[in-house]
């Protein structure tokens, strides 16, 4: 690639007519090739001006930018002049109303002249996905246990630190805790995120949702007046089976998705079933991880026979369906050969 560039640069410097127009800072744009024995690579430098997408105010001018510089590198240069806008909160685009450029995009591959104009939009304070996930999952784990152990001031004083006499209540605690421990471990060791960060306000929104629902469910399940399932042990056994299968399924899908993407990369490929039978659900849905997740919560709802759990499952299902439909749509857009049998989240239906 370097050789080609020097060829181009040499041809450019020879081929251009009446001298190249001067850059905005008055300096000539092309560094001439030196006629020495060792052919020094002639580099056609770019200039990058960054304007505010809303006010068109010129925020930064970068000269002598390498043509093969990535957007990520340009963001780093921009941060030097505006340290409050760290790269994660920068959105750079070619058009003020257009889509954000990706960090991996290369300057010279963009449809720009040798002076590139980029528009900047502040995405607001950012927080890493890992941080958000860990916080939003640690909450329910801890909060549920507060109710399980009947910590004072939740139920009447005579119930402080007492234990439920129903076995299903203990089982439910194990299942709920297992679920969130699994999520925490997956966040730390399994998931490969395509974005590093999300807006800071999301952590408040997400934590309210997870922590709030966890408290609401835990309150009833661990209540001294809790009523165990109508069909007794049979119902609990069935529910437990559903829960365990779906937890295994969900984990299998997470592993399969992880193996699709090498460490540190942001590549996207069509997921396919593997030898693991739990992944065979990929034949029918685009996002079997969500399918299994809904299944787990339905199992938990049947196990506890608790209306708030059912409502939590419903809300989660609604949100995951929206995500699954979005994911399904982008798969269809990105891959011409996407398997036609697949539905977003529920086989054949949704």
């Amino acid at each position: 690639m370097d050789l080609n560039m020097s060829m181009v640069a040499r041809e450019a410097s020879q081929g251009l007519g009446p001298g190249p127009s001067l850059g905005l800072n008055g300096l000539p744009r092309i560094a001439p090739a030196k006629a020495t024995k060792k052919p020094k690579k002639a580099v056609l430098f770019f200039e990058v001006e960054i304007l505010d997408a809303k006010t068109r105010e010129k925020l930064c001018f970068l000269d002598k930018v390498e043509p093969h510089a990535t957007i990520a590198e340009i963001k780093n240069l921009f941060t030097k002049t505006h340290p409050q806008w760290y790269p994660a909160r920068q959105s750079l685009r070619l058009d003020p109303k257009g889509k954000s450029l990706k960090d991996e995009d290369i300057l010279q591959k963009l449809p720009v002249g040798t002076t590139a104009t980029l528009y900047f939009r502040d995405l607001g304070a950012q927080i890493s996905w890992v941080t958000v996930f860990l916080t939003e999952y640690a909450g329910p784990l801890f909060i549920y246990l507060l109710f399980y152990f009947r910590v004072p001031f939740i139920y009447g004083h005579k119930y402080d630190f007492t234990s439920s006499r129903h076995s299903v209540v203990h089982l439910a605690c194990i299942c709920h805790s297992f679920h969130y421990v699994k999520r925490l471990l997956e966040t730390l060791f399994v998931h490969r995120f395509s974005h590093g960060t999300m807006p800071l306000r999301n952590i408040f929104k997400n934590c309210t949702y997870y922590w709030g629902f966890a408290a609401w469910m835990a309150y009833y399940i661990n209540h001294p007046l809790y009523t165990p399932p109508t069909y007794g042990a049979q119902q609990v056994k069935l529910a437990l089976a559903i829960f365990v299968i779906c937890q295994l399924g969900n984990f299998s899908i997470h592993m399969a998705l992880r193996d699709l993407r090498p460490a540190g990369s942001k590549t996207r490929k069509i997921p396919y079933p593997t030898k693991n039978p739990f992944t065979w659900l990929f034949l029918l849905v685009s996002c079997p991880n969500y399918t299994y997740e809904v299944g787990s919560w339905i199992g938990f709802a049947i196990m506890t026979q608790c209306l708030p759990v059912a409502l939590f499952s419903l809300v989660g299902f609604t949100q995951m369906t929206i995500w699954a439909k979005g994911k399904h749509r982008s798969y269809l857009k990105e891959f011409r050969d996407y398997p036609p049998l697949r539905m977003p989240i529920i086989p054949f239906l949704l």
Partner: protein
Amino acid sequence: MAAAAAAAKGNGGGGARAGAGAGAGAAAGEAGGARKKKGPGPLATAYLVIYNVVMTAGWLVIAVGLVRAYLAKGSYHSLYYSIEKPLKFFQTGALLEILHCAVGIVPSSVVLTSFQVMSRVFLIWAVTHSVKEVQSEDSVLLFVIAWTITEIIRYSFYTFSLLNHLPYLIKWARYTLFIVLYPMGVSGELLTIYAALPFVRQAGLYSISLPNKYNFSFDYYAFLILIMISYIPIFPQLYFHMIHQRRKVLSHTEEHKKFE
């Protein structure tokens, strides 16, 4: 808040527009007028005109009903009973406005409109209708009057906007009277909910307690208190939004008039 919200709806937060689907920015009441927006088609416009005319008429019926009852009774107490049926009918009918947004013939946000209409419907059915003892309270008259005046102006505003013939008086009224009508409506609503509380507690209205086989409980009394508390953050936001809109819309029209 239901009063405030409904008046704010036409120019609600996030760029929601008035029910005037038919395009021109001025009609929608947003300053910065010359923006051409694709309005609803002719059939939808005809339907919306009819809808808004019917609603204007409906609230006029309520207004007239109130006046007549006052004159007949000689006092302003317990006038609710005289307009109970049209009030329920026309306020509940406003649910259609959610559909209008969902279908797209009105460029407002579905979420915002739902919130506003539902809060009105909640007050009519889940508070005033459900707690009979509260129907003779004066606070009910307070919010009914506020709503009636607001809605007559609002629906005629939409009607005229759709027909592209908005008299300045209506626009002025819409963006000025709220200054008094909002607080009036909010006061009426809060006082009514407050009056309902002891009766809700006594009857255990809409409440379910443990133990039960679905392991669920709901305390309507606590819920109503939460609703009252929610007025604290929500009402100022809506109120000051309307004040801001007023400045934009009325000053913009002033400038326009200068150049005519």
